[in-house]
């Protein structure tokens, strides 16, 4: 897990579940520079724990996270299911952030309760940040 040194930001606390280290580093830098509290991990179990105890305002979730025996394991969906099942965590908005680009995956994510779906390749950190901000805004309005 990579955490931020700063205190919890007003803008929000983001958990990035991602195994791709380069991307992870880039987003870490970018979100922190933009005033977000940014946590990240490539391990699903760790991500679960972080979600429960650090209470992120939004989660950016990669879908294909390899396991030793299956390097295209779709652990992201497992994580999504777990989060939505747990009453403690089910309200955390999840933004699926993936390089899968099929209608099926979009539909699946929607049905599983994801707040948004972003196709990694065709996006930019800025766009992601805007989306995250929007989702957090919506969520905060709703819970008020």
């Amino acid at each position, binding site marked *: 897990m990579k955490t931020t040194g700063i205190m919890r930001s007003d803008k929000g606390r983001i958990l990035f579940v991602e195994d791709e280290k380069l991307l992870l580093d880039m*987003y870490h830098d970018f979100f922190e520079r933009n005033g977000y509290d940014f946590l990240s991990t490539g391990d699903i179990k760790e991500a679960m724990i972080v979600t429960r105890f650090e209470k992120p305002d939004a989660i950016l979730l990669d879908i*294909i996270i390899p396991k*030793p*025996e299956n390097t*295209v394991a779709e652990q992201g969906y497992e994580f999504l299911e777990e989060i939505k099942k747990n009453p403690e965590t089910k309200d955390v908005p999840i933004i699926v952030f993936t*390089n899968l680009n099929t209608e099926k995956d979009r539909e699946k994510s929607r049905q599983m309760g994801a707040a948004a779906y972003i196709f*990694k390749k065709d996006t930019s950190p800025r766009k992601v940040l805007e989306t995250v901000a929007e989702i957090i805004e919506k969520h905060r309005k709703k819970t008020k």
Partner: protein
Amino acid sequence: MQLSQVLPLLSAIFIFFLGNFVFWGNRRQKINIVFALFCFGSTIWFFGTFMMFISGANVELALFWDRIVYLGVALLPAFMYHLSLILTHKKETKTLYFGYILLTLFLILSQTHYFIDGIYTFSWGVHSQARILHHFFLLTFFVYVALFYFNIYPYYKQTKNRLEKLKLRFVLAAFVFLTLGALGYLPAYGIDIYPFSYFFGVVFAIIFAYAILKLRFISIKLAVKKTTVYVTSMITTVSLTFLFWWLFNNTFAVAENHAYIITLIFALVLATPLHKLIEKYSNKYLFYSLETYQQTIISLANKLNTIIDLDKIIDLVVDTIKATMSLDRSGVLLIDDDVQPVKYHIAKVVGFNEKNGISLVQDNFLTQYLTKTQKPLVKEEFDFLSEQAEKSVDKQSFITLKDHMSKIEASLCLPLISQNKLAGIIVLGAKTSGEAYTKEDLDLLTVLANQAAVAITNARYYKETKDFNATLQTKVDDQTRDIKQQSQHLQELLDVKNDFLRVANHQLNTPLSVVRNAFELMQDKTYTAKQAMEAIQNGFERLNSVIGDFLKAYDLEGEKMEMKAEPVDMSAMIERLLPEKQKLKLAVERNLKLSIEKPKFKIPLVFCDPKQIINVISNLLDNAVFYTNKGSVTVSYKLLKSDHLKVNIQDTGAGITEEDKKSMFQKFVRGKGATQLHPDGSGLGLYIAKKIVEGNNGEINVTSQGPNKGSTFSFTLPVYENQEVGKIIPTPMDESVVIFEENN
């Protein structure tokens, strides 16, 4: 009246009835006529004797009756001899005619005083006295009686026919008794012998009646049998009624007209059950079904029309005929449909030896004959048929057929004719009663056979249709299954394709997204150009590697890849490669220790394509590093007996489950852990490695002690024959630029 006087009367009555029974039983048979004549002669003999015995002191009367006796007795030896000829299947001889003439002469002479005259008086009655001609008669008498025995006995000894032997045994027994009746001549010579011999007429009649009824010794029509049963039951009823009447009158003091009525009721009540009882026992012990079997057969024929199960029909036919006609054997042979030449199979046989059954129809003769005549073939007719046959071939065939039938002890072949075609044969053995098949039997069986043939043909059509339907169903099922399998296979292929596309998409998009995001961040000024460059470079390298892998995998598809093999120093290659891998980011981060375990033997040169093999080793080492969070990666060597060098790359990483081992080296497989992809590459690394190693005549595999216990990837390569030649290809060459030296 004394017993001695009653005995000849009893004999007379018995033999009279026997004669009538035989004569009216079948007047057309020579044996019946001759036997009946013999019986009538004997009747006269016994009756005359009886009258003589009771004549008392009246000499004239006694003589009169004794002369009547000789009217009966005189021709008896001739009849006996005649019977013996018939029984032994011989033609009438001159001796027979001579006998008839001579004995007729004696018959006439017996009425003279030179034959008998005067009487002897014995304690039991009177007897005439023999005179001169009587001696000659007696001589002739015994000569012909002797001829009878000389004719019958050798034949009896020699015949192999069980039934005929049995018949002749009865004949001999009966006649021996009757011949003892000749002891009755002794008193004619003044010898006082008690005339018990006259009782032998009764014995004779009983033996014969039994033999006739039981062994079908002489053909007796059914009507006569039935009449006999009626007469017997009538006589019994009347006798019992009189007995009842007598007992009733003597026991109770009842008015006579009341006694009449009660007796009448008794008689009426008694009549029917008694008749049934007698009929039942006659059927059981004497006739074997007077009519019941015929009814059974007729009802069987009707029943057959309602059955469509071939086996049931055959069972019913075989069992019913055998049981109701009381046969020793029965069976059905069926002709296989539409097979040329005609081939039979045994549908069912009871009593026959199965192996022999088919011998009957070994040659085509029986088939042809039955098809032509469409009539039952009785074994007894063979001699006749053989004589009648015009062609000598046919004669021989009849004889052969008879032999076959004798061998399997079949007596009757009934053709099963349906639509003018022979469908098969019903083969029957003999009746256990020994009776021959009568014309009525044959008519009845012919009707049955026709019905059975129709039923069998229908059943066969039905079965054919059913089988055909079943075959069709099976075929439809098969094809449906094939189609299902094919569709399933296609679906699987489609799934694999979709999987591949999904993976390819993801794996190509990931480095692209790294590149793109790096650019964006640089634009955004979050990243400096230097920072972005690093990521961009990395992204391009990975993109390059993924595309290369995909293309190579498709290249390796199908035929073995052509390898440019040469002697390679494997240890040198790995020694150069290892420090590079040690510098990998992950290896440094995790503080992994990459090392080579030096073997005790000198590592030999191997024969392979070095440019390909170095990719394999590089790939395996990358994998090992990626999946090992802490610990080490160790390379070791082993020499195999098969002259191969084995290279093991052992890590202390995540390990692999048994299930995953199997699919590890496959390209894309459905299911859990199916698509094995390198995290930084295309996921085709192991698949490509396997193809390359196999292309270099080696093997690749993986072992693991289980999850989190590390795993060992091993590959083998053939040892080069000539170890003196050395060539080392330490690293893959950069092939992006080739300078064609000869063109400069």
